């Protein structure tokens, strides 16, 4: 297909590699080196998108990351990507793209009818209109669905992204951000000073603004020389297609490298994008500047573009987007553009808002045949689906029309309102910005101690040679700050002769908005093109009393689109300042936050997704559980056997059978996930005495004891058994969930407060496995399998342990019961755990041994009224849980003072009770308990914590926390599940449902 706007010669495209792409079903011919936007322009595509709110037709506006209009959908299926800026999408053969925010398409869009309603859709329109008329929020919420759908951006994909993303950590001395002239010079200088340098450039090529200058010129020679110099430096690492999106504390920078975004499908095992976390000592911000648009009626029409974007398309892509061009400016930087456009074959009229322009600027243009209009601006763009003319007018000092307007016919309007230095990273680092009157821009307020240096256009520097020089100095200073070596000679290539200066900063006239004498415009004049915020919206906000820039931003949503106000910021501030009769710095500016440009969440997640989101912890006998068809459940990071179904059992059938089996025969549960902490040292007993509520100093070697810990505020923290293995050697267990927390807490006490105690705490959770063997046959089974220990009730009563061997493996057998049955805990070194477990089962066959999971373990402990996580919920006291008897009355312990605060000692606090639930359905934990005697429902009196079916009682039971619980045994209460909308009744009983005397565990 013919490319009507492609120039015959020139450009940095590869004309030998012709490619074809699709946009909305239309074929675009292009070359390698094009972007999607340059291909659109080359093929004469004018309307490529629709506006956010009014659905007005929009064309390509810029040539970079600031693009507000040309947002498209890329690719299809699972690789579909919304809101891609066509100006930075590298062209590749077969690229599929479609327009977005338009139906049926961008060229004809039904919602464009909004344009007719535009006078009514001002700032705050939707809220004012739809929130008022009907009381309550239901009406608004109904309308909101349609409003949100009509306004908006691209459509997100809902299927999983098939591509891979990865994360890299990097370290360097000097990070150079931006591969334009200043950045290249900085990287060379820092590298020559001996620093380890990383240079990042968001574009696919190095050169930055130099790529927009004429091919084969003086600047190209300089760029080539710099690239050659860098190639020879092995201490400089260069990453292209890499955007630094955020600057963080202590010189950490976040960047995303688009490794294989420029192809349809990345090669096998290659990531589409890579997230870099870079830790550096110094950084040079050579991030350049973004050209500022001008504001006039219909300045959003397809065919209105940034002046230097047009220059980019001409010089870099060999695309001339218009033949008859009106160029409007308030500064010097449009003059070089005009010259390049004429040389490319366009007819150019140049409007300068400034009345007097230096001769050295306009003389060369006159010779080229450019028509000059000093003191003029554009009042309105003509044409509806594309620019057909420019209504121009003489301006007064406020940018208001002075005298009659006239119309110039044209097919392209190029505008330059000066430049906005890209200072996002500076601002993100919390560094100050200062308004520079000369360049009318916010610039970094430099300080010598800053680890972030700035260079080039980000500093509003003048011409190319000045950018090179600033880069060189910044690179040298950064390297010097790292190496400490001064006076290193550097050799950075320069331009042989200065090329024409496009210094916008030296003589800019602060006029950006052009209006009629009365301040009105001939149509919508957009300040924020991407979010459809017009001059009239800012004016409305002002009339309604919005004074603060932060309020204005949120009310009008200016600067809140995906471009984050890259183009609109200063123009909006300038209008506010004008309305309030203040200077721009008095109005202030909003704060920049990461990311600088949108980044894919996939890149940040990297490979930390699905099963790799966090480590999975497996017990040493995990494989046995899997082989024996256990259904596993996640308990924190652990995987634990939940239940072991037999012959198609449901979970309810399985856990009831398992629990009943334990009470009748013998069962084994894998308790290896318990937290295990070795507490060692001469002051270990004193330490335990302080952290546990009960006494520890008299615990003999060979004994173990259940203990409860409180937080310092008196609330129950954790519980578990601790055994005294030797004189100065204790073995503590914690609950599975709190293992890490308790270890950190003990370390905190020992290292920050009780530094005089000679105690070490060491996690041995992974070193030992633990199996609970429970049931009437437990002793017989262990007798059969153990050697070297007397397990009789007399030799080994509850709360004692013995050392023994099973199949030659040393084990420790604690006599203790969680299930309420005759029970033991077998501790064994992890490496031998599987062998010991298998031996238990081999010997247990004749005792009808069965494994049981966490569900039946829960049922057994609820039957016994033992508390666990649902009861120790960070709000309950010893008294609440019926554990007050454990607390020592004589010794102090952590929490012993604050547990007696008035509210924690109140008799009416909810306390632990049992509930026998009527009927044949179980209760739901979290259901609320209500008093049946009350006339009205009133407030709840407690809630269910742990519920189960009890095979021993043959009914549904629950533990609960109930106000005045102990005085209400025998009372009938209502249980209400407000989520499931069910009401049940239950009888309040003692939480010790089964064998309250403990005859079975002491047998």
């Amino acid at each position, binding site marked *: 297909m013919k490319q009507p706007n492609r120039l015959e010669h020139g450009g940095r495209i590869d004309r030998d590699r012709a490619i074809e792409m699709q946009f909305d079903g239309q074929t675009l011919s292009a070359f390698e080196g094009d972007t999607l936007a340059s291909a659109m322009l080359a093929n004469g595509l004018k309307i490529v998108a629709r506006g956010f709110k009014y659905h007005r037709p929009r064309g390509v506006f810029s040539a970079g990351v600031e693009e507000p209009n040309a947002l498209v959908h890329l690719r299809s299926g699972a690789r579909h990507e919304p809101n891609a800026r066509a100006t930075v999408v590298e062209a590749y053969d077969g690229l599929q793209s479609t327009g977005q925010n338009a139906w049926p398409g961008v060229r004809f869009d039904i919602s464009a009818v909004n344009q007719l309603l535009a006078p009514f859709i001002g700032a705050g329109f939707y809220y004012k209109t739809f929130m008022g008329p009907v009381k309550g929020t239901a009406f608004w919420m109904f309308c909101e669905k349609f409003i949100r759908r009509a306004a908006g951006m691209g459509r997100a994909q809902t299927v999983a992204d098939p591509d891979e993303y990865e994360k890299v950590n990097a370290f360097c001395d000097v990070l150079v951000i931006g591969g334009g002239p200043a950045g290249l010079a900085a990287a060379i200088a820092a590298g020559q000073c001996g620093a380890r340098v990383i240079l990042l450039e968001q574009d696919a090529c190095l050169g930055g603004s130099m790529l927009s200058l004429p091919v084969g010129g003086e600047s190209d020679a300089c760029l080539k020389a710099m690239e050659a110099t860098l190639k020879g430096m092995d201490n400089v690492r260069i990453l292209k297609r890499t955007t630094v999106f955020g600057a963080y504390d202590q010189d950490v920078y976040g960047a995303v490298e688009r490794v294989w975004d420029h192809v349809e499908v990345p090669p096998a095992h290659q990531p589409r994008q890579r997230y870099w976390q870079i830790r550096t000592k110094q950084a040079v911000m050579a991030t350049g500047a973004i050209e500022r648009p001008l504001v006039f009626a219909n300045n959003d029409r397809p065919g209105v573009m940034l002046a230097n974007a047009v220059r980019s398309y001409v010089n870099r892509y060999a695309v001339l987007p218009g033949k008859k061009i009106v160029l409007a400016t308030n500064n010097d930087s449009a003059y070089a553009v005009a010259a390049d456009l004429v040389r490319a074959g366009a007819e150019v009229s140049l409007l300068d808002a400034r009345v007097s322009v230096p001769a050295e600027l306009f003389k060369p243009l006159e010779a080229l045949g450019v028509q000059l209009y000093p003191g003029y601006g554009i009042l309105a763009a003509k044409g509806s689906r594309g620019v057909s003319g420019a209504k121009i007018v003489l301006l007064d000092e406020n940018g208001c029309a002075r005298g009659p307007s006239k119309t110039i016919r044209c097919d392209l309007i190029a505008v330059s309102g000066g430049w906005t230095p890209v200072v996002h990273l500076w601002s993100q680092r919390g560094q100050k910005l200062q308004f520079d009157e000369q360049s009318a821009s916010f610039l970094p307020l430099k300080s010598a101690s800053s680890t972030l240096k700035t260079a080039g256009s980000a500093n509003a520097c003048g011409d190319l040679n000045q950018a090179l020089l600033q880069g060189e100095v910044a690179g040298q200073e950064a390297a010097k700050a790292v190496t400490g070596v001064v006076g290193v000679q550097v050799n950075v290539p320069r331009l042989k002769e200065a090329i024409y200066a496009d210094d916008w900063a030296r003589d800019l006239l602060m006029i950006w908005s052009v209006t009629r004498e009365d301040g009105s415009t001939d149509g919508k004049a957009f300040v924020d093109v991407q979010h459809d915020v017009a001059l009239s919206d800012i004016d409305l906000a002002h009339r309604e009393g919005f004074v603060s820039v932060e309020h204005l931003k949120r009310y009008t949503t200016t600067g809140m689109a995906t471009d984050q106000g890259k183009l609109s910021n200063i123009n909006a501030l300038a209008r506010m300042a004008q309305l309030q009769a203040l200077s721009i710095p008095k109005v202030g500016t909003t704060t920049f936050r990461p990311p600088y440009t949108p980044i894919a969440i996939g890149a940040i997640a990297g490979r930390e997704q699905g099963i790799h989101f966090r480590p999975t912890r497996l017990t040493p006998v995990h494989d046995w559980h899997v082989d024996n068809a256990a259904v596993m459940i996640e308990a924190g990071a652990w995987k634990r056997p939940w239940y072991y179904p037999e012959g198609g059992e449901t979970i309810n059938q399985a856990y009831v059978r398992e629990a009943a089996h334990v009470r009748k025969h013998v069962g084994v549960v894998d308790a290896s996930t318990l937290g295990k902490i070795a507490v060692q040292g001469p002051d270990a007993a004193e330490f335990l005495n302080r952290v546990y509520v009960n006494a520890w100093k008299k615990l003999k070697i060979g004994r173990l004891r259940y203990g409860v810990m409180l937080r310092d505020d008196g609330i129950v923290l954790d519980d578990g058994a601790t055994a005294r293995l030797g004189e100065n050697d204790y073995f503590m267990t914690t609950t599975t969930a709190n293992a890490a927390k308790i270890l*950190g807490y003990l370390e905190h006490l020992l290292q*920050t407060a009780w530094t005089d105690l000679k105690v070490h705490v060491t996690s041995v959770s992974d070193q030992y496995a633990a199996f609970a063997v429970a049931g009437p046959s437990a002793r017989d089974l262990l007798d059969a399998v153990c050697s070297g220990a007397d397990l009789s009730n007399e030799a080994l009563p509850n709360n004692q342990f013995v050392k023994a061997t099973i199949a030659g493996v040393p084990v420790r057998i604690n006599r203790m019961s969680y299930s309420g049955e005759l029970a033991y805990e077998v501790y064994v070194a992890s490496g031998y755990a599987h062998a010991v477990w298998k031996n238990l089962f081999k010997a247990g066959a004749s005792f009808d041994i069965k494994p049981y999971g966490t569900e039946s373990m829960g049922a057994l402990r609820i039957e016994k009224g033992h508390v666990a996580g649902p009861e120790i919920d960070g709000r309950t006291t010893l008294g609440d849980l019926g554990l007050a008897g454990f607390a020592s009355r004589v010794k*102090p312990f952590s929490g012993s003072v604050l547990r007696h605060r008035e509210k924690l000692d109140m008799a009416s606090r909810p306390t632990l009770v049992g509930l026998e639930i009527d009927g044949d359905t179980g209760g739901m934990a979290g259901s609320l308990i209500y008093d049946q005697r009350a006339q009205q429902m009133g407030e709840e009196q407690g809630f269910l914590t742990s519920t189960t079916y009890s095979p021993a009682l043959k009914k549904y039971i629950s533990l609960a926390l109930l106000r005045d619980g102990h005085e209400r045994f025998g009372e009938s209460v209502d249980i209400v599940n407000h989520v499931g909308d069910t009401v049940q009744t239950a009888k309040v009983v003692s939480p010790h449902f089964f064998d309250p005397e403990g005859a079975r565990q002491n047998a």
Partner: protein
Amino acid sequence: MIRINCPVCGLRDETEFTYGGDASVTRPPIDDTQLSSWMDFVFMRDNPRGEHREFWHHVQGCRQWLVLERNTANHAIGSCTLAAGRGT
């Protein structure tokens, strides 16, 4: 992300550490039975803008509790010492 210069392990990312609260408060002796001293210790904190001494636990490293000087206004990091070394 801040980076913390652990006296044992060297300069490490914040993600290896957990925050452990204000290091300028002193835990009452275990046998102090005054309600007020424990109330102060557990609940009363200044909320300074600027220099702050705080506990950090190198939980993914040497497991030492550290006392770190951090500026709450700009995250500037000052000295970092072992908490166990305090007062000795």
